[in-house]
Every structure is written in C-alpha cells, then in structure tokens.
C-alpha cells in the first residue's frame, strides 16, 4: 500500500471520528469567531492605511492561535484512550501517521482560515482583496497553514507521548513557526498592496513548506519512538488497512 493511501486511510479514520461529534471543528470555529469579534472591537476604527499593516497580523495571529488549539487536541483521542501504542503497531509506515494527522490538522486550520479571510474582508475595507483575488488568497492560506501545521503536528505527536504536558506546545510552537509566519505576513501584505513580488513570496513559502515537511517527517519516528529500529516487515505480515 502506498504512503499516500496509508496516510489517507489514517486521516479518514480520524475524520470519521471527528464527524461523529465535531468537537475539534466546532471549538476551533467558535474560537475563530471569538478572535474575530475581539479584532473587530479593537480595530474597527483603524484608518484604511493602517489596515494594510494590521490585517495580515490579525489573520496569521488568529491562525496561530487556532492552530495551537487544534494541535493540542489532535492526538487527544489516542492519549485519552491510550491507543497511541496500538496505532504505532499498525502495519503502516510510521510517517503515514504523521501525514494523516497533518492532513486532519490542515483541514481544520485551513477551514478556520477560510472563515477568517471573508470575515476580515467584510470588517476591514483593506482586506476586500481576499474576495477580489480568491485564487491567490487560497494559495497563500494553504501554503502558510502547511508550514505552521507541519511543525506543529510533529511536536504535538511528541508531546502526546510525553505524559500530557501539552502546555509546552505553545512554548515550542510560536518561536519555531515564527519564520513561516513572517513569510506568510510578508506575502499577505504583498497581496493586500497588490505588490508584484507576491508570486516570488508564494514560491518561497512553498519551498519553506517542502523543507519543513521533509524535516518533520524525517524526525517523526525518532521523536515518537526514541530510536530508529525499523520493524521487521516481511511480505505476509503486511496487510491492507481495511482488514
């Protein structure tokens, strides 16, 4: 079974469980709404010129907060039911667990970003570009979220195995994701200002995404298990996930 298929099956398993109670999606969406209201109350009277500077900050700060909230919950089912060990014994590449969780986190965080962008456009005239240039806006949102979630998922996994000290996630996450967030801020500002370098910034953000995903997937197994002893996988023992 290919890595993509393994990752998809693991992500689907999480999504099916999430669809039963929508706990993570609802809390993340509500948190996004609360942050939006707070931004609206704080910055409603901001002059149009200053909005160009403030809106990228609002967008990516909100995503950083929502991302941290989602990442603290992403391994909760495994931790609460103590099933992480069971997941690790599944006959799949362990990096597929990373990609599966990354996919779910990305879906939730990007979904919240998709709520944020039009809402910011309605609240602040400078952010109307988000609606006027939806393709660039969506690309920017996805690329920024991939960088953030790629790092976050690795450390959320590590903390899930470290006796539940999830409070440390924010301590780790914000300094480590700051370069990705700065790249995203620069690109968002270029989008709002109609700067011609937007494509270059998006390309750089994509390169950063590739580097972070590669590094995180390389480190996932040693972080989660503490060693790199590969399980012996003979052909008959490998079974499809559906069985």
């Amino acid at each position, binding site marked *: 079974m290919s890595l993509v298929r393994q990752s998809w099956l693991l992500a689907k398993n999480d999504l099916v469980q999430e669809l039963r109670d929508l706990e993570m999606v609802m809390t993340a969406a509500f948190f996004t709404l609360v942050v939006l209201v707070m931004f609206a109350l704080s910055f409603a009277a901001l002059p149009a010129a200053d909005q160009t500077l403030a809106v990228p900050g609002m967008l990516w700060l909100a995503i950083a907060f929502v991302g941290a909230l989602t990442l603290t919950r992403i391994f909760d089912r495994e931790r609460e039911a103590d099933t992480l060990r069971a997941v690790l014994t599944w006959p799949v590449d362990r990096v597929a667990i990373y990609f599966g969780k990354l996919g779910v986190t990305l879906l939730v965080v990007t979904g919240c970003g998709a709520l944020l962008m039009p809402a910011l456009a309605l609240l602040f005239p400078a952010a109307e570009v988000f609606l006027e240039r939806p393709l660039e806006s969506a690309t920017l949102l996805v690329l920024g979220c991939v960088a953030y979630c790629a*790092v976050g998922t*690795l*450390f959320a996994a*590590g*903390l899930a*195995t*470290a*006796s*539940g*000290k999830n409070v*440390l996630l924010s*301590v*780790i996450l*914000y*300094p*480590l994701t*700051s*370069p990705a967030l*700065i*790249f995203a*801020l*620069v690109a968002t*500002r270029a989008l709002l200002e109609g700067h011609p370098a937007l494509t270059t*910034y998006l390309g*750089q953000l994509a390169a*950063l995404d590739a*580097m972070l995903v590669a*590094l995180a997937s390389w*480190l996932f197994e*040693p*972080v989660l298990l*503490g*060693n*790199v002893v590969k399980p012996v996988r003979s052909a008959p023992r490998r079974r499809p996930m559906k069985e």
Partner: protein
Amino acid sequence: MLARLPLVLFAAAALAIPYSVQRIFLHTGIEKKMGTVQKIFYFHVPLAWIMMALAVACGIAAAIQLRRRSQLAESISIATGELVLITGLAVLVTGPIWGHATWGRAWTWDARQVSTGLLWLIFAAFVLLRRYGAAGSERLAAALAVFGAVDVPVIYYAVKIWKTTHPSTDVVGSLPPQMWASLWPALGALVCVTLGLLLVRIRQEQDQAGLDEAWIALDTGGK
C-alpha cells in the same frame, strides 16, 4: 588530559582577557563616527559568532542524538543549547547598548536583531523543555534544536524580506584592519571561556547519566 582541558582553557582565557582588554582600550584607535562606544564591537561580534556556531553544533548533536541514541551527543546538545541561551543573552544586551549609542535607538527591528531574538527564543524553549518536560521530552527537545539550527538562515532571510517594507538602518560600515586585528584576541579569549564551560557542562551531563544508570542497576539488582 581531557579532564584537565577545561582548566587549561580557563587559564588561557585568564591570560587572553586582560591582554585583549588592554589592546582594545589602550592600543586600538577610537572609531571616528561612533566614538568610544564602538569598543563594544570587540565583545558583541565574537559573542554573536560563538552563539551561531553553538546553535548549529546543538542542532547537529541533537540530530545525532535522535538518529543514533548517543548519550554523548545528548550531553553536547544540552550543553551547547544552554550556552546558546547565555551567549545569546549577552548578544541581545550588548547589541542594543551599541545600537542606542550609534543609531539613537536600542532596537531598530534590524534583520539581525530580530533573527537573533527569535533564535534566542527557540533555544529558550529548548532549555524550558529539557527542564520542565515530562519523561520522553528529551527527544522532543532534540527535534526542537534541529529545527532551531535549520531555522538560523531561514529566520534571517525571512526577517530580511520583511524589512524591505520598513525604513532601512545605517548599519556599521567597514572598519580599518587594525580594529579587526584587535578582534581576534577577544574572540580567542571568549572561545576559550565558552569551550571550557562547554566541556564542564558536558562532563556534568555525562556524570548525571552515569549516576542514573548506576541507580537503575542498583534498583533492578535489588529486586
């Protein structure tokens, strides 16, 4: 010999520091534009170089620790990570002092300032995680150090492009060769101190690990 190496390094530093200070203050000219305050350059720049080198060393040691389960690599990553925090703090204190006297503002959001600040935050998180993390968080801290080392150039570039939309700052221009010549003894003295501290801290961590193993052996042997 290896056990005495820290003492040798500290002794060398004890000689190099007074020599370096007298050379900087008595035998090196005063920079025309910045005046006496430029003397901080001889401490600030070597400290910044040492911090960067330690950050990269910490990342490499942490990667080896993760991939090969090496106790020595773990000790090195802890020692270098903590020293990044100390040297980084020194850089973040001396930099704004210099900046305040030269630019009139202690913090100008210059790319180097921000990238140093962010790097310091990453290694502060590393030390916090090592200190307060639960069992198993040493692997997480190692991954953090790897990301921190890889982030060094990324952060610098990110802040640099971010700065393109901000007012530019007149950073220090070129210095005459005799001023650069006074930099090397200061660098040597600081490297000696750093290496001495590094070796002492590595030894402490190795001893700690040895004691832990002895304790476990005693505990399991008693049962």
